[in-house]
């Protein structure tokens, strides 16, 4: 025994075997090979595997709004009404019909369906709507994304004591968003979030009073209400939708169909709950998504890169297994120009309209679309998507035109006076060069784009210096107005949302999303007019005028509306893809499509 375990002998034997035995390394190799894959899933299972390219930042129904959160929420929650993805019109979801609107346009009376139940079997009533609205309007609710919009539209909720399913949504005034502002708000159950009915003691008047001091009880209520819903407490996710979460894992979130869900039997596509299980798989790296699709291991992805989908479409196996599409979406990419820099750290190179217009003529947008996104994008000339009915199609894309740019710069007084090939001008006694930093989020595509822009600018004596930043710094500098120019993008929606968030002068003064400093009283009044206009024709005329103002002022060089890249497994019958987020209705995916088994 002692001999067997003697140290020398053990070492000697191991090393001897290692070196002199020719089977040692083949043995290690064989062990590796024994680990080879087995086939994983059955294509017959009624489970949808959907792709998320990032983890949700929590699943709180009202306090979060990231892309993954929105995608997942569509199967867990229900809003009062929603956008019909086919027509982009608002349709009732939890209400019986369209609201009755008062003559002054300020009171919207809704009647709820009486068959709607929460998971604990309680009826969904107007009290829940009142609670939801109170919560999202309240100072202590941690939902800064939604609160400003809601507060600018909603005044209060009035209940009907004799009819718990009827309520009035009282608006602050006539507003184009009166009938759609609740489309992104998921209803929450008062009994569940506020079992002591604390918010019943809080009036809408109190909520709107900025100087109101909140009691300890209310503060404590919101501490609980704001508690994030995450991996550690997924069971706290409670909604009116057809699915409930059963597991929150590192790389996946699993949802199962609720038994005896209240909406079952409804024929509308939005009430379907066909898959037994929906699994959201978090795959953050593009190359892994690419491989998963090659293997047929994802059923739905709307977050592919253009390059990957083009490569995938060259694969016969992929084409046999997947429908794929470059679909429209409400998102655009732009170059923001700082119109009102501090003048000290950042020089006022873009303060003049003619300079900004010249810059627009120097951005090779068509080449960028061709090279960077393989032609899968459409030019966009202002803030409104060409998909919207109120898009101003009289505005034409600004072409790459060096001569025009030179003329505009000359007119603005920017000339190369010292022969260094960079234009300059004396402003307030100081000679300033037409040279600027072009910020972009660290990303290979944006870097290539910035270099293309730099090359074009250099041809007419404008110096663009690409400056790569990680997201936090990029965003922070934009908010602080501490930038010259920046490449950014915005995701929008089919529903009109208050343009004041991005374009009002107040959003610049308060260091909000108006990064560039665009705006004057006219544009502000146009925004207010558009917001308050419920006559569709007048609304359209005003919003088109606003687009024309933006087009003329060029605070952004609007570049393109990039297409969404979608792949859906052919084991599902006739799946539909929509421009409006989330782009697909997972709960309506029905098995029975023809597909090959994924290749091994």
């Amino acid at each position: 025994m002692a001999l067997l375990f003697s140290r020398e002998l053990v070492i000697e034997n191991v090393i001897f075997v290692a070196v002199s035995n020719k089977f040692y390394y083949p043995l290690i190799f064989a062990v590796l090979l024994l680990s080879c894959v087995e086939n994983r899933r059955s294509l017959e299972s009624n489970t949808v595997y959907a792709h998320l390219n990032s983890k949700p930042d929590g699943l709180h129904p009202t306090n979060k709004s990231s892309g993954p959160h929105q995608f997942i929420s569509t199967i867990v929650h229900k809003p009062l009404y929603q956008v019909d993805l086919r027509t982009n019109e608002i349709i009732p979801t939890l209400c019986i019909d369209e609201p009755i609107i008062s003559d002054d346009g300020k009171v919207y009376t809704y009647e709820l369906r009486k068959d709607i139940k929460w998971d604990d079997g309680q009826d969904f009533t107007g009290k829940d709507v009142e609670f939801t609205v109170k919560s999202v309007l309240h100072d202590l609710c941690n939902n800064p994304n939604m609160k400003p919009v809601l507060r600018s539209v909603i005044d209060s909720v009035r209940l009907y004591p004799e009819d718990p399913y009827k309520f009035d949504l009282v608006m602050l005034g006539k507003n184009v968003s009166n009938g759609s502002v609740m489309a992104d708000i998921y209803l929450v159950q008062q009994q569940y979030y506020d079992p002591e009915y604390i918010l019943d003691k809080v009036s809408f008047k109190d909520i709107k009073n900025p100087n109101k001091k909140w009691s300890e009880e209310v503060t404590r209520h919101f501490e609980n209400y704001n508690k994030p819903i995450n991996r550690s407490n997924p069971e706290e996710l409670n909604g009116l939708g057809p699915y409930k979460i059963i597991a929150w894992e590192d790389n996946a979130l699993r949802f199962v169909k609720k038994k005896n869900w209240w909406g079952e039997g409804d024929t509308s596509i939005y009430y379907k709950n066909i898959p037994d299980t929906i699994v959201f798989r978090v795959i953050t790296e593009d190359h892994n998504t690419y491989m998963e699709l090659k293997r047929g291991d994802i059923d739905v992805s709307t977050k592919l890169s253009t390059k990957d989908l083009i490569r995938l479409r060259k694969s016969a196996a992929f084409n046999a297994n997947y429908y794929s599409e470059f679909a429209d979406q409400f998102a655009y990419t732009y170059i923001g120009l700082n119109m009102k820099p501090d003048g000290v750290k950042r020089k006022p190179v873009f303060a003049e309209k003619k300079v900004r217009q010249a810059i627009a003529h120097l951005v090779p947008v068509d080449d960028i679309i061709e090279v960077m996104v393989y032609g899968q994008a459409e030019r966009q000339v202002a803030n409104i998507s060409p998909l919207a009915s109120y898009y101003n199609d009289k505005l034409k894309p600004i072409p790459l035109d060096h001569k025009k740019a030179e003329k505009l710069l000359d007119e603005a007084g920017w000339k190369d006076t010292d022969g260094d090939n960079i234009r300059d001008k004396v402003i307030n006694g100081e000679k300033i060069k037409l040279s600027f930093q072009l910020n972009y989020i660290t990303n290979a595509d944006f870097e290539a784009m910035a270099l293309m822009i730099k090359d074009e600018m250099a041809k007419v004596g404008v110096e663009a210096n690409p400056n790569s930043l990680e997201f936090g710094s990029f965003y922070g500098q934009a908010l602080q107005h501490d930038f010259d120019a920046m490449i950014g993008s915005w995701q929008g929606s089919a529903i009109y949302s208050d343009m004041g968030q991005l374009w009002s002068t107040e959003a610049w003064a308060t260091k909000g999303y108006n990064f560039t400093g665009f705006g004057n009283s006219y544009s502000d009044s146009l925004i207010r007019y558009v917001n308050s206009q419920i006559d569709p024709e007048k609304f359209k005329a005003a919003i088109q005028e606003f687009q024309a103002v933006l087009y003329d002022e060029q605070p952004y060089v609007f570049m393109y509306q990039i297409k969404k890249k979608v792949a859906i497994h052919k084991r599902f019958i006739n799946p539909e893809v929509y421009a409006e987020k989330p782009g697909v209705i997972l709960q309506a995916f029905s098995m029975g499509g023809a597909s090959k088994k994924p290749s091994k």
Partner: protein
Amino acid sequence: MISSLLHIVICLIAWFTPGFIAAYALNKREQNFEPKWNLLLGIGVLSAFGTVFIVFGGQKDVFELVFYAGIIFISAFLTTRLMFNEPQKLLYILKRVVLFIPTFFIITLLAFFILKSSPMDPVEAIANSKAGKSAAQQNNVSNDQVKAQVRKRLGLDKPTFYFSFGTLADSDELHKVIDQNHRENLHRLTRKYGNWKEINDYYNSIKKAKADLTQLSVDSIYDANTEFLFPEIVQRDTAVEGWMVNGQFRPYIDSSNKTVLYKKNCIHLYDSSHRDSVKEWVCFKKDTIYKEYRYRADSSLRYIYKKDDINNSKNTILNNYNTLLESENDAVVKDVFSRSDSLFDAYSFLYPYDKSYHRLKKARKIMEQKSTSWKNYIPSIQINGMDNQYHAWLVGTRPFGSQDTTLPGGLIRGDFGLSYLTGESVNAEIWRKFKISFELVLIAVILAYLVSIPIGVYGAYKKDSLFDKGSSLILFILYSLPNFFVALLLIRYFSNPDNFMWFYSNGYHDYTMAEDVYYEMSYWERLKHSAPYMVLPIVSYCYAMFAFISRIMRVGMLETLNQDYIRTARAKGLSESKVVWKHAFKNSLLPIITIFANIFPLAVGGSVIIEMIFSYNGMGMASLKAIYEGDYPIVIAVFCLAGMLTMIGYLVSDIMYTLVDPRISLSKKK
């Protein structure tokens, strides 16, 4: 809280106790152990540490229980043999373990202060502050309330430490300021002027001026201007007449030569005897006095401000106030005041806000005049008491003996707290990720050793042979390839249906299987299940080590083979095998042991690149994400664990040195 210190202590006790009893019984029977047991002792110690983690991973069947119990028993047995046979060695180990405590304390302090000096503010992330800046001022006020609530919940409204070293200029109130940018600017002002009271007055005066100006309604002023067309509203009225003097409305007693124009709530006054001079006009509207406008001498109509002027003035000054709150750049501040001055001079509708603006300018002037920057050169100690952030972090708020796990237990109870961003327990998160990374790293390192040591030894033994040169060439080519490149190549060729679909490259278990089900499997089943997922990450992880370890082994072996005692061994007729393996190999192991000590911290750090490429959600990914998002409880936990495990690693390697080289002693030489 599996990974709590308490659990580890319990585990260690569980580990020692049965072994102690067994060893004691054996010792009674057999007094002396041979030194050759020492190597097994080393292995035992290592396997015991490994077992601690494996056992926590959960074992499900009898076989595993017996297996692990066996490992634990052997390890414990050998440790206790040490206790009897080499007490000085044990004493050394115990000393080192005791030294862990102050070292760990220093590590926590370092971690805590690194956290505190980081530029990111978790409150901004949790309260979604950046999003909250999107619109009206009222929303910012609302967002400030949420931020205040979050700061209170995280305990960030308390002083940082029991005491603070600073200067006379420092304030003990700075940590109470909610906005991170404001806090930083106040800190800069303190460094510059050193008079906190005046700085605070200045700060409050900016906030007051900003709040006042926010009340300015562009539409109201504009409407007031456009409603009253001079010819339409001329009426005489002597009931209310007055004059604006320094912003105060003063009624006239003698109104004989005054004309009053009024409509609704507004009254416009002018001196009819001096119509060519610039006059003051006032307007009452909703109890607010606006100094309205001036009129030109050549016109009987007044001068009306453009709406743009009102709007731009308001927003520019608001922006200027925001800049003052956040910036202390001299040139910027000078420019801000110059622009604000010109606006206040140009537009009389700003008159009601002029007062707060001048108060702010005055506060600034006082701050500059009463500068006591010398205070920055005089050190001071501020005693903050026990109610501070570090104390709360270290000790928690849970009473000792309480089972209420909703209250933070503090670091001394092994509770790293909750993630700032997700609200999850850091312990649970770290433990889950640690197991994943540790398994990967351990297997990768063992594989690297298994492959490299024989190559190194054989290369040295057959120096300059074809094998030596060939293996060196191949290994160095591998060594020169970056691991992300190799990882992507491996995926392309071995996890691709177009080539070889042999392994998986995403995650560590089958996505169709819920994680709960995966963890319910026995360890061996899990290992078998995960094998196809682990092969490519492991290969990507360890291939570069092949060259590294084998070269170190080769160099050590070459040196040893040239020693006199090797020649002696050969001279006395020992077989080559015995010469190499018994005499040379053992003495060449020291550098290899040094590398081995790094396994533990490696496991905590994880490999960011490998984990990202293979979506292997281990410590690397978790740490990177936490750093990016400012989730400092996780960063700090990783920092502390890495420090702790580095200490353990070096202790293990010290022990192993003595095992392979008897000349190295852990005890003091007498």
